[in-house]
């Protein structure tokens, strides 16, 4: 008689389960890979970049990319009008874009979660007030509001990041509030309250962890908005000031050479597009993987 041992399938941990759904989405994985690559470039920019972003090679002005006639393999993507290596400036620019994204998303996430939890938990008058302010902010196009804020505070990277985090605040407030209100009516919140949990414990330890899924998705998409808005502000001369290597301001600096040297505008823009696309792809993938309704 043969003995057959039957082992129960090992249940997946939530993380494994998440990765199972996330990895079926090829676009999301591609987005994630690119984001990892760009973060690596941002962190190790000093070692990865072939040249200093501000070093001006006077004998190599407006050099075309290496594979074109007249190109030089020491400047793979060519040089700009004062002889700076475009590839090195792009690599150093990723540092700026990623850190602005992190600062802007973290700041608006923290503020948004706080306001949203307060509005959703206490309801009533305070909720109405917060939501009215959110509605006003939503009535303004985000770029216009950001431009207005930077116009007052003065153009700089810090002010641009501040403006971007203010304009993306409403989405986080709305999401947190809606999720909080949905969780508030559940039994586990009621039982915690019966045991004697205070408002702070209920808000941050009971409710917040259960509201995180939509917030993670929104934060990922928030990165793409932050990078795009930062580049737009830089392009309009309201963000990073020269000679800082920032993708948007690299574009506007090169405007007058568009006709003579296509590469000075093509590569920074392509970089913005691919980075934003990567975050959007990953956001879509996260949404599908974290949404239990779509898993079935």
């Amino acid at each position, binding site marked *: 008689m043969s003995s057959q041992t039957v082992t129960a399938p090992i249940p997946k941990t939530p993380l494994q389960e998440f990765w199972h759904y996330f990895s079926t989405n090829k676009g999301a994985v591609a987005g994630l890979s690119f984001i990892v690559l760009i973060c690596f470039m941002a962190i190790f920019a000093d070692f990865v970049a072939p040249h200093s972003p501000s070093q001006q090679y006077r004998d190599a002005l407006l050099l075309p990319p290496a594979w074109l006639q007249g190109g030089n393999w020491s400047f793979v993507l060519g040089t700009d009008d004062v002889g700076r290596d475009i590839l090195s400036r792009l690599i150093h620019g990723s540092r700026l874009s990623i850190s602005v994204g992190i600062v802007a998303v973290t700041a608006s996430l923290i503020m948004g979660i706080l306001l949203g939890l307060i509005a959703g938990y206490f309801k009533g008058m305070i909720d109405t007030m917060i939501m009215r302010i959110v509605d006003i902010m939503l009535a303004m196009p985000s770029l216009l509001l950001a431009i207005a804020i930077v116009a*007052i505070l003065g153009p700089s990277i810090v002010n641009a990041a501040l403006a971007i985090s203010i304009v993306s605040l409403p989405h986080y407030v709305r999401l947190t509030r809606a999720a909080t209100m949905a969780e508030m009516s559940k039994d586990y919140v009621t039982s915690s309250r019966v045991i004697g949990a205070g408002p702070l414990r209920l808000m941050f330890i009971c409710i917040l962890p259960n509201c995180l899924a939509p917030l993670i998705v929104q934060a990922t998409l928030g990165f793409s908005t932050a990078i795009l808005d930062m580049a737009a502000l830089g392009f309009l001369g309201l963000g990073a000031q020269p000679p800082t290597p920032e993708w948007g301001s690299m574009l506007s600096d090169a405007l007058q050479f*568009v006709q003579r040297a296509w590469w000075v505008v093509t590569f920074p823009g392509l970089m913005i597009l691919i980075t934003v696309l990567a975050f959007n792809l990953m956001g879509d993938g996260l949404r599908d993987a974290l949404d239990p309704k779509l898993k079935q």
Partner: protein
Amino acid sequence: MFQFIFRRLSLVVPTFIGITLLTFTLIRLIPGDPIEVMAGERGVSAERHAELSAQLGFDQPLYVQYFRYVGGVLQGDLGNSLITKEPVMKEFLTLFPATIELAFCAAVFAILVGLPAGIFAAVKRGTVLDHSVMTFSLTGYSMPIFWWALLLMLVFSVTLGWTPVSGRIDVVYWIDDVTGFMLIDALLSDEVGAFRSAVAHLILPSIVLGTIPMAVIARMTRSSMLEVLSEDYIRTARAKGIAPWRVIIIHALRNALIPVITVIGLQVGILLSGAILTETVFAWPGIGKWLIESIGRRDYPVVQGGILIVACIIITVNLLVDIAYGIVNPRIRHSK
């Protein structure tokens, strides 16, 4: 119905108050004394300072200043430009048609391309066509439009020479300003080829400005169509032997369009803020370029007034979209 419209209208009042508060505070947050900012580098004497201060009402308490400001706004008085000395409202009205014309053409482009693309993607779900439409729309959605504008300009204007680089019409034409809309004015004028020139100038800016709305509309149309196509009544219609295109266009599309129309209405904000970037690149003389130039010149009344008007336009359009949505969808109308 009227109760619903009234309820939506009453929500606009606090939003309007909030926006006027915002633009009112805006100008007071600027570092430095507003009168010295106005006077510029030359500076003003103490007497002149007091005189201007009284004239502009800066010696009054803040709440009085605010009510004066709102009173002026309600009568269409947004102050005068510091540079041209013209009323802000007047400048706005002369430039606004150019922006409307551009935004309208961009919206037409977005709908004409986005809607069919979304329908095809939904009908051919899972095919190469579907995947490419979705890839294109996600790319369009991620597009830095100022770069897209430069790229198209580089290819079609500089290299191929098919379209003009910037402006609304060729300088050889002198078009009388009748309506402010170049397309209409060019048609009304006797100049031969003026209309053609105006259209040629509109093509690239409209494509650039319409790219993001197009992507949003295509995505929304696809998901809305997919939802409707799985409904029982569609299966019934197919089972009855109705032609497939008729099921898609007449039966499915009509219901799928409701959320799409809402999304189209909500694109007005994207179009107006996108106009800032598009107009800057194409030297299009509209309100976007006007606002950016005013920020550069520190012409604060223009910035303040311009932002206020744009915000009011968006609130109004959003309100109309909401009401239209309530008219076509009774569930929204009767919910509290």
